[in-house]
């Protein structure tokens, strides 16, 4: 396998031999033939299609479901590396919840001059309806995905926070299932932490977040926009694995001030709703009146303390990329400690000097919309044509406050299986975090997204990225 010294390869470092976490795996790999592996790869695709692990791509005319490419070389993380990451993630997630509580209450962080006021009050994701309201357990983001990238043995950066509705956890689980099916013997040779307890941990975490007045075992449900949503498979999967109902807006109704679902025997109240629809669509009476997906009056039931909505409305502001640039301050402000996980250096184009620098260096930077996600609307300077850069320059000049810029990071690589053997591809990592009044739980594993195209740095599935199983070893 060719190695490129510009990038840190998680299997082989910078060309200096197999790294420790991969040693057992590579010993196993040595005894496989390329053909046998390629056959397993095809089997895995068939398995995914048969199981219906698919997603719908927005903007494609034939609304058929597509498979996310799955690569069967795992991404492996040693126990020590993981312990370090976990501490950083816990710290960050606690800080995010404290931040959300603060901005919907006294806004101490603004008063202290650590964050400009307009970034909060003029943010579309800031919900005035949440001001002064205490969500059950004071938790805003119950389910978090923290996107990490790596550039060297001990260099991890947070690329973005997904505090609103992180998706992809079903792939973490199904990728592992697939690997267990394809290579059962491998798991007796390498000691890998289990991820399969996630759905039950999620259910427990949601139950613990139920409103204080809940007496019996809380009734939990997952709210989906329906089968045409790109992540429908995941919604159904999680409801199924947790053993709770998967509801749509038109199944729900406010009965005696509580959110209730229409069952074959009448309306039954819900205590905790894990919603997978955006704030805007949640309640046509309180937000977008044309929403067909939400529940009229759910915000009133929420404010009356009759239901927990997870994640809380108004959480999305924490995902804003302009807010992101303040995250080191946020962590320090609320935890009193230095952040354990680094941010990627970020230029806020709203600031004059930063904008000038960014305009000057577009060819080498990654520029993102502050509200964007999914890899849409961003510029990857080094990969863009002159024409694309020129077009982007105009957009940037027109609305600078809409953008942030970051250096193009030398993302680490992990090999993928190709027809020509193993070949390195860039990856990122999304660990999944659960927050309840009883604490923070980080599942040992996560979703590794991989840019399937050689040299590409864009890992989003909507842009042709694939996934890998992510192993956290029980030892180093």
């Amino acid at each position: 396998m060719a190695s490129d010294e510009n990038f840190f390869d998680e299997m082989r470092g910078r060309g200096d031999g197999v790294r420790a976490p991969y040693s057992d795996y590579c010993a196993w790999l040595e005894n496989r033939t390329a053909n046998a592996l390629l056959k397993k790869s095809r089997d895995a695709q068939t398995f995914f299609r048969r199981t219906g692990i698919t997603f719908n791509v927005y903007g494609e005319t034939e609304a058929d479901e597509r498979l996310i490419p799955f690569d069967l070389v795992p991404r492996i993380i040693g126990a020590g590396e993981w312990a370090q990451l976990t501490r950083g993630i816990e710290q960050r997630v606690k800080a995010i919840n404290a931040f959300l509580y603060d901005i919907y209450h006294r806004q101490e962080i603004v008063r202290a001059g650590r964050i400009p006021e307009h970034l909060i009050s003029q943010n579309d994701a800031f919900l005035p309806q949440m001001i002064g309201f205490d969500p059950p357990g004071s938790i805003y983001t119950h389910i978090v995905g923290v996107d990490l990238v790596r550039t060297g043995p001990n260099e991890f950066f947070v690329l973005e926070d997904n505090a609103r509705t992180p998706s992809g956890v079903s792939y973490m689980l199904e990728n592992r299932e697939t690997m267990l099916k394809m290579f059962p013997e491998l798991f007796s040779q390498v000691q890998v932490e289990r991820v399969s307890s996630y759905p039950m941990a999620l259910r427990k975490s949601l139950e613990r977040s139920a409103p204080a007045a809940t007496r019996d075992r809380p009734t939990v449900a997952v709210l989906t926009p329906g089968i045409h949503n790109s992540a429908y498979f995941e919604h159904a999967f999680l409801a199924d694995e947790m053993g709770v109902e998967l509801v749509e807006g038109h199944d729900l109704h406010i009965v005696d001030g509580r959110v209730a679902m229409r069952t074959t025997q009448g309306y039954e109240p819900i205590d905790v709703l894990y919603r997978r629809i955006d704030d805007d669509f949640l309640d046509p009476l309180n937000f977008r009146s044309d929403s067909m997906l939400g529940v009229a009056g759910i915000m009133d039931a929420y404010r009356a303390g009759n239901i927990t909505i997870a994640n809380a409305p108004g959480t999305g502001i924490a995902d804003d990329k302009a807010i992101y640039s303040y995250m080191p301050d946020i962590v320090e402000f609320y935890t009193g400690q230095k952040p354990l996980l680094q941010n990627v250096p970020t230029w806020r184009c709203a600031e004059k000097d930063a904008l000038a620098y960014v305009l000057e260096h577009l060819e080498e930077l990654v520029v993102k919309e502050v509200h964007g996600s999914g890899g849409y609307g961003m510029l990857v300077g080094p990969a863009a044509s002159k024409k694309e850069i020129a077009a982007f320059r105009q957009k940037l000049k027109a609305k600078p406050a809409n953008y942030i810029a970051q250096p193009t990071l030398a993302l680490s690589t992990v090999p993928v299986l190709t027809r020509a053997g193993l070949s390195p591809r860039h990856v990122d990592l999304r660990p999944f975090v659960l927050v309840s009044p009883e604490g923070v739980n980080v599942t040992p594993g996560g979703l590794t997204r991989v840019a399937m195209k050689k040299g590409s740095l864009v890992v989003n599935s909507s842009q042709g990225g694939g996934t890998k199983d992510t192993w956290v070893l029980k030892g180093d």
Partner: protein
Amino acid sequence: MLGRTAAGLFWMARYMERAENTARLIEAGFRMALTRAEAGEEEWGSVITAAGCRDAYLEKHETIRADKVIDFVLRDRSNPVSVMATLHTARENARMTRTALTREMWESINDFWITTKEALRRAPSEADLPEVLNLIRQQGAQVRGTTAGTMLRNDIYNFIFLGVMIERADSTARILDAKYYVLLPSSASVGSSLDNVQWEMILRSASAERAFQWLHGGKITPMAIADFLIFDARLPRSLAYCYDTISLQLEGLFSQYGQRMPSHDLAEALEARLTATSIKDVFRDGLHEFLTDFMGRNGALSYQIVQDYRFME
């Protein structure tokens, strides 16, 4: 269980059953065409009638021709009762109710859809048609197998089987009604070879030809055929069998939910009617009238189940 889930299960089962029934009609029509040189307009005409898409077909095509009928009934997505369209709807409903299905069952339904879609990507040639129809039959059997072998016997199962049986009863009644005139004693050509072929087609459309021969030792009469398909509760596609099974499902719902609903009365009344009536009464009062009345009541039961179990707001 959510009302919408019950709806999804019920419609998934109905559409799945319909897809299979429609494929079986084509199989019967195709077989007639093979065995009879002049098989043509009339036989394919009764296929589209029994499949419930005669008007839609004639809107699109001027003449009734084998290849056009086969394509319309098998592949045409603009025809809501074509095999492709019904399978698609069945799968959409299954996706909607995934949380209520076992993994095995969902996979078999998904497989049904994927393999059929692949097999019908292009119009099958005459030589390939039997293989395609056979595939559909096998896939359907697989879904039934995983349903029987993996599903809990609870309300989920009950709603699935209500869907299957209501659809099946409708289909059998429709097959008989599409050809009721060849079963009438007044038919001019009683006993002719044409009649024999027609009767055989009826039996084949209900997968009942072997069973019939076995039970009746080759003595084919119109009354015996109608009696078999309507009243013989041993035949899994007879109206009597369907209603026996429907009663069991409603009893199951009653014992789980502890509540008797108006649909229970409708089903009981229809079952009682099937028990109290004999084939002689049916022929005396008119086979077509009997079948029309039955289909109406069967539809009313379906509608009442939708109400009783809150399928919709």
